[in-house]
């Protein structure tokens, strides 16, 4: 059982921690972009307020004490009618000789009644974003909000940029709305009979399904990891080849699985865009945006995963390989007309509006600025007593972070072993 000390009533996390497997190596502490992890008494502790489910820690943990937990495939069977909404990176996971049409067909064999591709609404989403840019001339740059880890990063570390986030629901949510209405209308089913499941490439998308930010109206019922169904799909190759059902694919919209493509598609009619991927690059750029240094851009696409969604931790295939397959699929795809007006009208009616996102700032030392200053002085004094090498052996990510932890009574000066050793050598010499 996971020790869900990162699950609180307040925050859901798809990154879970198994305490008994943790060996206290501090690898995770060093890579966490929000400094959410500490090792105390030989075990990691994760701050649920700060964790943005970027899953950086998962990829470095040597013992799998940190894992991503998405919904199990079995959970779809409790619904009468099941829709799979697949992330664009899914189709890049399968080699050409397997065939992406087989990969789509496989979902029916796994128990879904209908399959929808995120790719279907790429064009209309770009159109909506272009309109949003036009009617918000005072917000520059506007920041993409379809990567949930990035939205949470802004909430935790860059609250001053919250107004810059695109306050429109994600393409996946727009699709869910479209299909829910369609299924109710065409199949005469009740709302609660329909299960809508996303097939996702990353931890933060699982989190977003279970705890969306803003006022998402059309919740999905779950999120299933691509790597959960991958081997099952491969094993079905034979029966899939015998299945002759027609498959319609919107492959020409797969582009958003790749970093840079969203920015490229939005950049028309004098709109300047920029694309950044990889959490550390994103942090650097957000810091520049905070200093108004990138105001010349209308729109900036930001992705937690390097290369974009093809780089998500729940994929199987190497991101570069998946990206090259997706490019091929786009080039060979046929253009299919979809009802763009439907989406644009709903957007214009405010149906996809999201309420202003709130900060999750855990940055300040105290609510009262005078007390915060007093604490900050202590932090500075203590930082000067520490070696400044950021070794993380104490269990805090940096010397500065340890100093802060000490002032906030979450650690002690004696946690710094380097300092202790120095003091001891000095004593011996005397």
């Amino acid at each position, binding site marked *: 059982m996971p020790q869900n000390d990162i699950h609180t009533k307040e925050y859901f996390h798809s990154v879970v921690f198994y305490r008994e497997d943790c060996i206290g190596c501090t690898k995770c502490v060093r890579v966490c972009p929000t400094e959410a992890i500490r090792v105390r008494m030989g075990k990691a502790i994760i701050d649920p307020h700060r964790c943005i489910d970027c899953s950086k820690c998962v990829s470095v943990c040597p013992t799998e004490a940190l894992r991503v937990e998405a919904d199990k495939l079995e959970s779809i069977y409790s619904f009468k009618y099941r829709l799979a909404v697949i992330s664009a990176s899914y189709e890049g996971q399968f080699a050409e000789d397997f065939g992406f049409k087989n990969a789509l067909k496989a979902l029916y064999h796994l128990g879904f009644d209908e399959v929808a591709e995120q790719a279907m609404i790429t064009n209309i989403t770009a159109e909506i974003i272009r309109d949003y840019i036009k009617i918000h001339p005072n917000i520059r740059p506007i920041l993409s909000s379809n990567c949930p880890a990035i939205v949470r990063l802004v909430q935790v570390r860059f609250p001053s940029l919250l107004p810059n986030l695109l306050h429109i629901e994600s393409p996946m949510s727009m699709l869910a709305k479209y299909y829910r209405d369609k299924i109710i209308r065409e199949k005469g089913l009740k709302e609660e009979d329909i299960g809508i499941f996303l097939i996702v490439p990353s931890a933060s998308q699982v989190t977003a399904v279970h705890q969306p930010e803003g006022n998402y109206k059309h919740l999905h019922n779950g999120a299933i990891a691509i790597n959960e169904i991958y081997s099952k799909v491969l094993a079905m190759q034979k029966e899939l080849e015998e299945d002759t059902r027609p498959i319609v694919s919107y492959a020409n919209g797969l582009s958003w699985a790749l970093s840079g493509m969203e920015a490229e598609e939005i950049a028309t009619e004098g709109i300047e865009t920029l694309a950044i991927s990889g959490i550390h690059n994103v942090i650097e750029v957000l810091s520049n945006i905070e200093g108004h240094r990138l105001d010349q851009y209308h729109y900036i696409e930001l992705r937690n995963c390097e290369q974009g969604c093809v780089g998500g931790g729940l994929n199987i295939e190497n991101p570069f390989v998946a990206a090259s397959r997706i490019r091929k699929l786009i080039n060979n795809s046929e253009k299919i007309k979809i009802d763009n007006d439907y989406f644009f009208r709903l957007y214009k009616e405010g149906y996809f509006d999201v309420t202003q996102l709130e900060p999750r700032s855990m940055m*300040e030392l105290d609510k009262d600025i005078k007390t915060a200053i007093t604490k900050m002085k202590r932090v500075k004094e203590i930082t000067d007593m520490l070696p400044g090498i950021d070794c993380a052996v104490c269990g805090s990510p940096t010397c500065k972070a340890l100093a802060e932890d000490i002032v906030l009574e979450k650690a002690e000066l004696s946690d710094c072993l380097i300092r202790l050793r120095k003091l001891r050598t000095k004593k011996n010499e005397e």
Partner: protein
Amino acid sequence: MKGSEAVKSKSIPEYWAIKPGFEEEIKKIINERPEPEISLDYEIAENDYVKTGKASSDVKFFLKKLGVNPEVLRRVAVASYEAEINVTAHSKGGKVTANIYSDYIIMMFEDYGPGIADIEQAMQPGFSTANELAREMGFGAGLGLPNIKKNCDGMYLSSEPGGSTTLIFFIYYEEKSYAAK
């Protein structure tokens, strides 16, 4: 580079820009020179575009930790970055001191020359003497100083050709005007 002391005794061209309502407050600070709560010092090296920006990002981090209003924080970030870049791009290097008080911040940039020939001209939007390297790095639009002025509640600039340049700015955490008091 310590020769600037002698130069200082002569009358040096000065430039002041104070937002309406802040005159009294800022005059009081200058007369009383209150002790800052926290004082941070940084060196700024000439032409080092890799390291420059360290001071302003560090100060921004401190203010975040204090819970300073996000909009004010962005103004401090803009002003301090522009000033830091100016020392990197236009001078032989210098230093900056950030004095943090409980309701405002003062940042003082001082460099080792070569000074500004005509301050009024330097303050004009679009005026720039940026060298090729600075332009390659994306600077030189001549908007830095006007931008600093726009983002501060008070700004002081003094310089003379051959001497050092001093830039000081004051930013209050509360976005209110003091005129009403």
